[in-house]
């Protein structure tokens, strides 16, 4: 082999061996692809009034960043992400993670009894969720890891709220003309654009296709009716959702979805205007 080269270089490499542990971690701020992403890509901490949601969006996580010191990490975040992180974090939402700054569409609540409140000045918290009643609510998490529809179960446990999120995984196969979900859900409506709001409804299958395919997205618009004058229904040509609501007003509306196994699923929705844009929420009990 290259014995000559070896001999000349042995000394250099022996010296560097002393610094071995730090060699690989000298590059503070490298995007480490080999992070262990936590099972839940976000954390929810509640008190008697509201819940704080912290989302790991894969970009900010100290222990994966190979920085030699916390100070070095804070400097990196400042120069690269333009954010000032305070070393101390205010309770009661004290968490050991770093969450991303709130984006308007990162958490989309599908019901009017779970309000999403943006947070701008607490770095560990992405948004607050304010529950108004117990129940199930579809929530869409628009983040890089773990993106998708979740079923939020809102409960009151003693004096404190509790929200459990269950990822309603969607089948990714493009071999089927249908989209399958792990769990059925009555309705979820995306934020509207120019008065058009894509919506989803998934009904339970009589027999599961697989352990992750127990419900199917309703894709036949003829089975769905909006019983109010200011909501019309049109097909989704891309077949991503069940269809589109076209809204030209606001107020309460009943959506009626004929079920394959008979009967109807009736969902009351609230069409509201936010900053000139329409949103359609599942209505809570009065």
């Amino acid at each position, binding site marked *: *082999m*290259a014995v000559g*080269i*070896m001999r000349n*270089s*042995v000394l*250099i*490499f022996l010296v*560097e*061996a002393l*610094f*071995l542990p*730090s*060699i*690989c971690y*000298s*590059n*503070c701020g*490298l995007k480490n*692809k*080999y992070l262990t992403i936590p099972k839940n890509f976000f954390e929810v901490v509640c008190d008697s009034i509201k819940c704080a949601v912290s989302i790991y969006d894969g970009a900010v996580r100290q222990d994966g960043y190979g920085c030699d010191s916390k100070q070095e990490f804070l400097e990196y975040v400042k120069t690269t992400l333009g954010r000032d992180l305070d070393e101390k974090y205010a309770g009661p939402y004290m968490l050991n993670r770093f969450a991303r700054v709130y984006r308007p569409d990162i958490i989309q609540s599908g019901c009017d009894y779970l309000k999403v409140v943006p947070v701008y000045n607490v770095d560990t918290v992405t948004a607050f969720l304010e529950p108004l009643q117990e129940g199930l609510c579809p929530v869409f998490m628009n983040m*890089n890891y773990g993106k998708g529809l979740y079923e939020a179960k809102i409960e009151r446990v003693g004096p404190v709220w509790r929200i459990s999120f269950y990822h309603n995984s969607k089948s990714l196969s*493009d*071999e*089927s*003309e*249908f989209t399958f979900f792990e769990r059925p859900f009555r309705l979820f409506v995306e934020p509207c654009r120019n008065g058009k709001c894509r919506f989803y409804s998934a009904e339970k*299958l*009589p*027999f599961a*296709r697989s352990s992750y395919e127990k419900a*199917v997205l*309703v*894709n*036949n618009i003829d*089975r769905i009716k909006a019983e109010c004058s200011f909501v019309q229904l049109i097909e989704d040509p*891309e077949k991503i959702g069940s269809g589109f609501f076209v809204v030209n007003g606001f107020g309460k509306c009943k959506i009626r979805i004929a079920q*394959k196994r008979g009967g109807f699923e009736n969902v009351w929705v609230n069409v509201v205007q936010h900053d000139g844009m329409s949103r359609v929420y599942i209505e809570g009990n009065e």
Partner: protein
Amino acid sequence: MTILFFVLCILLMSCGNEKNSSEIKTPKKEYSVLKTMSEEQSMIKYKKTYWMKFTQSKQCTNASCDMSWKDALNACPSGWHLPDQYEWEMFIGEKYPQRDSLNIEGFPFSNLFFWTSSYRVSTKKDEVFVPLFVQFFSSINSNLMNSPSKILCAKDEDNEKSYFKKNENFFYGIADLELNQPSCIDGNIYLDYSSEILLICDDNGLKSLEKKLKVISDTVDSPIDSVVSKIKFLPPCSVGMKNHTFMLGDFRMFTCTDYGWKSVGILKQEDVIRTDIRDKNVDYKVVRVDSVEWIAENLNRTVPGSACYENKKENCLKYGRLYNSNVEGLCPNGWRLPRRRDWVALFSRFGLNGAYIRSKEDWFLDFRENKDVGLSVYPAGYYDGNFTDFSMKTGWWSYDDENVLYAVLFDGERFSHNYSVEKNKYYVRCLRVVN
């Protein structure tokens, strides 16, 4: 000492050097050390392919360089190429003595990501071409996020084939100029799917040759052991696909040759004929598909051990009977149980489209279309200890290629199978081959 030397080399190579620190020597040092090795020492030979031991490309001057797939396709030095998924699969999949010494031989750590030149195609509008990459030196996945990765270059022992780059009857892969066209490999010829115009990859862009692919319009018999797919776009014709025939959703067939995809014609489809036969005072509806006659309904002969779904007589009348594994002699004289190949031939004959096979009614799922040729497969479920899957699926007793009795299942869109069938009951459909 030798081992320590190489281990240290590798460790240093695998760490980034974006930030200089006073304690660390710059990585370029060990790279320049390696550069003095002769070419033979910087390569590993596996079968008929040489693999470069580290990323050494036009764009990268340092062994830890990551790049986009677009850059990766054309980043290998002259005479070398970016290996496709099949070359990678052969390299990482099989054991050979040198592999255990990979780390010592100067190969990068196995916890790195490497591009392949292959891409996955799908029918999704916004995700037509998704590049594939090697993960942890053990598996090949789609890189949905398109994150930059490393490359290793390979070259064939008998030098790169340049024949197909000039011959316009062969093409490397499909491009769609309206949707996301794949990044391309310089000098290769691609086919635009919609216009069938040949494109040449020139300076990382696809340019029209203003010539169309010569498509053979003759009809060909479907080779039933070929891979047939209803995908819209073909992936690159790579090592593992040699001599396999693919069929696009419009029944055009292409074979992967040494030089690229070649059009071989259009799938021959004879008319499907519906007839009736009478056997021992029983009438059967028959559908003839090419040279095979299928009885177009499930058997309904009462034998011990057979049952109706949920033990309801009306189910037997409409859907036939469920039988246990004593299938000897169930079919009428001259007819037999299907084999795996019969199902493959049937399904491929209809372009893997279940619409031609399933019944118009009784399916829970709202299928978009129905083109039942008369086979009228109902989702009549089956029995696996319980009566199950009614309105979603059904299954029949069949034989596999080794003559093992098993169950073939159909869910309206695709076929599957099950070998754990001892105590199960399935339906029976019989067929015979006619000349």
